[in-house]
């Protein structure tokens, strides 16, 4: 099978300085999304470990795989987890989960933790949908809007392009910025047709970065439209995979005229992190397995 440029690399991390046995509350969250799955474990509200993996075609397995990977190299096992909240498409079939909460609530909560309580508008650009979320100072969702009809402006769209151009999904953002002047955005909003439009541009001799720029700005424009429908209240932050794509993010910031907050955390784990934080709150309220 040919190299799959869209397939980003899975990753894991844990904080060796934390001894979970000494902690009061160990809480866990799993976000089984349509394209990727993340698992997060927190100890007393501090990030202990996480993983970022691809979702398989069987969601219970994906949840187990993600948590297993997060716990690698720690002395914590899935059975040790006192309480786990599941979120994402597969939230209801997390074998070791006790409660399911939507990714909208979890991304709101996670973003509040990642970017601080000043955040009011969260943009989650996931694999197949794109959500604009309003949250209060606690990270509670007050209003939200999701893209319908067409999936343009989602992570999947960018994967399709990485594949077409033979550029690793991790590099498309940077590359798209290597153009002297911004080209016309691709006109088609449908990922599949944008793809054939792009092949046309390549045939016409366009360099890869120019094609990427044209798609990235089309994508940014669509997402900006979604944000405008709900209204962008500062502060503003982005979660999900696309947050790592500087090509889309810078163009989006330019469109809406607001900079997005920066965080030391991996933007893709916001959902799982929110789930873990909800788990913590529930444990404090006496929730048990």
């Amino acid at each position: 099978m040919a190299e799959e440029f869209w397939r980003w690399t899975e990753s894991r991390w844990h904080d060796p300085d934390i001894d979970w046995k000494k902690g009061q509350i160990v809480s866990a969250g799993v976000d089984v999304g349509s394209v990727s799955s993340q698992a997060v474990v927190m100890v007393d509200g501090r990030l202990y470990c996480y993983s970022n993996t691809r979702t398989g075609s069987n969601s219970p397995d994906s949840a187990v795989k993600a948590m297993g990977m997060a716990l690698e190299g720690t002395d914590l096992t899935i059975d040790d987890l006192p309480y786990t909240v599941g979120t994402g498409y597969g939230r209801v079939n997390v074998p070791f989960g006790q409660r399911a909460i939507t990714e909208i609530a979890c991304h709101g909560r996670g973003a509040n933790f990642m970017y601080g309580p000043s955040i009011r508008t969260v943009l989650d650009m996931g694999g197949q949908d794109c959500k604009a979320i309003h949250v209060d100072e606690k990270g509670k969702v007050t209003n939200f809007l999701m893209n319908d009809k067409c999936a343009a402006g989602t992570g999947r769209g960018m994967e399709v392009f990485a594949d077409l151009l033979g550029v690793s999904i991790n590099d498309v953002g940077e590359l798209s910025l290597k153009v002297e002047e911004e080209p016309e955005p691709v006109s088609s909003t449908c990922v599949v047709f944008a793809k054939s439009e792009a092949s046309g541009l390549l045939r016409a001799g366009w360099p890869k970065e120019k094609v990427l720029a044209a798609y990235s700005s089309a994508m940014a424009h669509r997402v900006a439209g979604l944000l405008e429908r709900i209204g962008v209240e500062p502060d503003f932050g982005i979660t999900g995979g696309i947050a790592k794509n500087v090509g889309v993010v810078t163009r989006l910031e330019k469109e809406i005229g607001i900079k997005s907050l920066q965080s030391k955390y991996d933007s893709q784990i916001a959902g799982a992190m929110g789930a873990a934080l909800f788990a913590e709150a529930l444990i404090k309220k006496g929730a048990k397995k």
Partner: protein
Amino acid sequence: MIEMFQEWYQARHEYAREWKKKNPGGKVVGFFCTYVPEEILLAADILPVRILGSHEPQNVTEPHIFGMYCPFCRDCLAQGLEGRYDYLDGVMIAQSCLHIRQAFTSWQKHVNTPWSYYLPMPHHVQSEDRAVKFYAAELNDFKKAVEDWTGRKIGDEDLKRGIEKMNKSRQAMRDLYELRKRPNPPLSGLEAMYAAVTEQWIDKEEHAVIVRQAIDQELKERDLGLGAKTRLMLFGSEDDDTGFVKMVEDCGSVIVVDDHCTGSRYFWNDVVLDGDDPLTAIARRYITRPACPTKDWPERRRLEHTLKLAQDWNAAGAIVIQQKFCDPHELDIPEQRRNLEKNGIKTLMLELDVTVPVGQFKIRVEAFLETLSEEDLF
């Protein structure tokens, strides 16, 4: 007995066929819009049957209706093209939106239902007397057409009989909806939808009897534990998608009231005879009923009506059902939502197609309920 409505919903065609067996020579007329004056059909002892879709993917309407028109009108036409309404003696429409009109006109041409009638229901209902006068004259022409077709005169007494049947059925449904005001509703939104939708094709007296029995017996003390659920309103385009309603309620809500044409809008007001001749009285009822958005101008009178429903039934939030491409409601919903939100009732807009993408809707509904819920996770 409340499960009767679900049985009727699932066996709609069998019911009509049975009805014809029981009423030899009796005619069944399919109608496309709730502006059709069923009183006149009942006066001629005809069984009116609302034509609705089946919520299954189909591939037969593409040659007849351009894809930019609503899925509902295409789903309705598909039923005719696939022969599911082959027992109809006639088919008719009262002028409302352009979309459903195409289902009717294509049906006229390509489905061999013997008799058909296009009834020009006026749009300027807020001109009241002008519209009433016009519609009464149209109803008179319509009555004549039915007489010529059935070969039977329709006298004032017959009309009054039709009016009484309709009013009784409407009253029964309004009383059923009253029960949903209770803090602990004795019936689910799904059960209510089965009752409301079937009223549009079951013999009105037969239907009213069951509704009465349900109210007086089964529902009197019934406790389904719905008191703890989040109370929602459903409003917007035509919606008889029971699978969708079940999904919404399974997410932890109870639908307590609705405003759409397969719900309360159908039975909200009665024909009032006082003084008027029967046809004028009937005309006045349809002119003054809660309007379809396409007739709600120059003023937006629906805003107040919808808001009052939400408040009287104490809905915490409203799910806005937008039939894809349904222009009349697309022209109404933005203001409706602003008005409800302004009055503290949160809304969630969903775009309905022939079948609903459960996964994508479930997440929206659950998230919406989370924003309404009081549980403190913080």
